[in-house]
């Protein structure tokens, strides 16, 4: 187990370094950050001086080495635009993204699992068909379109929910939460649905296919033969066995949700990390971009690592196999 962990950590470091290098190569193509920092009347000399001070004139390998050594000390520099330390900016924005991601995941699970179970059992009912066509919509419509549609229906026409922002935010020891106020709860509904819709359809379809498979197995037939109620069979025996792959997928998807909340955050002006990232891309704010990409890489690597460890822990076959070798 220890050797396994060490090997995985070593691999993770290599992944992080690769991401850093790729990101760094990409920054050569995002444009000139200096032009976004200065006013139009700034002289060429001042621009050149700024470029020199930012170290943008140094050779790429030197810039990369400097970036990696700083990053290892968790020092990502100052945002060119906001003129605040990047680590603080990201730390301030992380709670918003995290809360949104959790809300979206919960939405996906709490709706997706029952829908999956229902459509798995009642394959031919018209409700199942409606659910499945709806989930097709969720998979095929782009996120920004869903977001805008929801805004128009619930904010403009009905006026029930706010169209942007986080509502009233409370600061608890540096963690700014929107979940302690009514306006905060109202504000999170639309973005969470928008962000979670794809995951929800994924869960529905996954649970459905798993259910259909499990319901065909022998132990379900035996359970039926024993005269158990269909409720006990469906939820007590069948669903439990379908959940293992669902949990794995959702765990992995959480990283994806956090990383790809960018579009949802832009549509709803949700003040999270994704919005920060988009703004930094438009302004060629390299310190923010690099820190964000490293953070996302780190999240993925960590989640993968945990999932791998969980596999070993949950599935005795892997454990036994590695002991034998």
């Amino acid at each position: 187990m220890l050797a396994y962990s060490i090997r995985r950590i070593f691999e993770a470091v290599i992944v992080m370094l690769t991401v850093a290098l790729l990101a760094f190569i990409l920054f050569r193509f995002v444009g000139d950050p200096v032009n976004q920092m200065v006013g139009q009347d700034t002289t060429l000399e001042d621009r050149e001086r700024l470029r020199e001070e930012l170290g943008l004139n140094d050779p790429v390998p030197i810039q990369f080495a400097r970036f990696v050594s700083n990053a290892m000390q968790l020092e990502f520099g100052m945002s060119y635009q906001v003129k605040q330390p990047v680590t603080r900016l990201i730390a301030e924005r992380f709670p918003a993204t995290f809360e949104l991601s959790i809300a979206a995941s919960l939405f996906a699970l709490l709706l997706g699992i029952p829908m999956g179970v229902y459509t798995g059992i009642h394959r031919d009912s018209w409700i199942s068909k409606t659910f499945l066509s709806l989930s097709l919509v969720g998979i095929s419509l782009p996120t920004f379109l869903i977001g805008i549609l929801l805004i128009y229906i619930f904010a403009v026409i009905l006026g029930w929910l706010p169209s942007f922002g986080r509502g009233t935010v409370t600061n608890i020891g540096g963690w700014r939460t929107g979940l302690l106020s009514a306006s905060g709860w109202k504000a999170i509904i639309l973005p969470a649905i928008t962000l979670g819709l794809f995951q929800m359809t994924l869960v529905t379809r996954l649970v459905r296919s798993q259910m259909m498979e499990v319901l065909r197995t022998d132990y379900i037939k035996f359970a039926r033969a024993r005269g158990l109620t269909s409720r006990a069979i469906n939820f007590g025996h069948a669903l439990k066995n379908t959940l293992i792959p669902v949990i794995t997928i959702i765990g992995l998807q959480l990283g994806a949700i956090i990383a790809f909340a960018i579009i949802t955050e832009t549509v709803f002006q949700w003040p999270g990390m994704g919005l920060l990232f988009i703004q930094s891309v438009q302004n060629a704010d390299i310190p923010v971009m690099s820190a964000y990409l490293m953070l996302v890489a780190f999240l993925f690597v960590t989640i993968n690592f945990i999932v791998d460890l969980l596999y070993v822990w949950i599935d005795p076959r892997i454990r036994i196999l590695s002991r034998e070798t």
Partner: protein
Amino acid sequence: MKRSLSALLIGAMAAGLAAGPADAKTFRYAFQGDLNALDPYSLNETFTLGAMGNVMEGLTKRGKDLAIIPGLAERWEVVEPTRWRFHLRKGVKFHNGENFTADDVLFSLDRMRTPGSQIKSRAPADMKAVKVDDHTVDFVLSQPNPILHYEWDTWYIYSKSWAEANGATQAQAATATSNSPASLKANGTGPFMVMSHEPGVKTVFKPNPNWWGKPEHNLTEVIFQTIKSDATRVAALLSGEIDMMDPVPPQDIERLKSAPNVQVLTGPEIRTIFLNMDSFRNELLYSDVKGKNPFKDARVRKAVYQAIDIQAIKTRIMRGMSEPAATVISPLFFKGATQMSRHPYDVEAAKKLLAEAGYPKGFSVEMDCPNDRYVNDEAICQAVAQMLSRIDIKVKLNAMPKAKYFEKAGPTKKYDSSFNLLGWSPGSGDAWNVLANIIGCRDADGKGATFNYGGYCNPKIDELAKKILVENDIAKRDAMILEALTINHNEAGVIPLHQQALAWGVSKKVEIVQRADNQILFYWAKVKD
């Protein structure tokens, strides 16, 4: 009864008494970009300067029609051609209660010249400030300068002691490893105070009860938020969550106008959009013409000019939201611009000019264009490319984000472009700025008129610009400006297209003044019941 009550309440507010929630008048507005650092010396950009203009003040201000009016200086006079005397307003207090004096002006001049400052062009580098007494300051120049104070409305005065106490004596440099508190806090003399500021999220302002002027607003609170997505900004206004937003995307103007609770304020903006042709190099970088540069020939430039159907751009692309321009400065800033008129749109004449210049079959050229900087920038370039195909100039369009565009077409990559689109509004509100930056000569590195992205050069314009800079006689000065602009016009040195229009979406509950420089100044806003 009700009216007298509200009059009483407004009176109470003006007197600075605490106002209850019942009569709270909150103005909520949204802009597509962020309000980043609150240090107005560190970013010379209209929106930031406008927002901070509610909080801080310069020696001068600009009125609703952009005319220069007294600000922190009550009056000023030119004692000698090279000595200006400013008489400061007495009894003015900063938000933290300190008195405003001549020392603050001297300090602000020094701060404006610190390395991180982006507003160094507000005053000549060799200008000296001399304190005559606590409320009189002399500015001593090395040569006469009739437009010395033109940009001082956005050179905001800092409190010396506050800046010293808060470690904000230097303009926030982009490279600094520690941030100065001035990037999150503000202390000015203006009609509003910043209560809280979260960059990119939300900024809250409250009226300054001790402001020296007479408030023209009736607000008790102002909330600014960024809303980046066009559709969301429109939705937020329609649903009544915000009272004002800028800009309205052109395609949504009609829809907003037909909404019951919203109006669209439109007006001409001062920024001019124009096209540059590389007439600097001896051979174009991106063209099939080798060994020579067609754009060096004024006839070719004029042919391009006359092939552009500016009315079609106005009606089809800008949806009426533009004012075709005959020169690169808005008539709002230079009255003489109204005496000029565009070369007429005439495809036949353009073809003839091209044939005379030796390109009867046209040529091909690549065009660079930003796609996130000006209103419909990419669409304008597409239209221009299409229109030029009628005179057999085949344009390959490279549209790119602004960060990329300004790097490629500008001095950073030594003007790596043959044909491009640019917008400019003179920060000083004066034509000299345009002569010095846009249509004057430059070298290959950008020394001279740095923002002349085409490199067109006529030394006569440079000579005129030198004289204009020191000419104190306004009539003579205007005549010379007109002469310089006319030279450029006759040779089609740049091709002016239009001034884009401003479009603010405003709730019908709100009255606000839309100034042509697009600064959002809520000290002129009123919220109705």
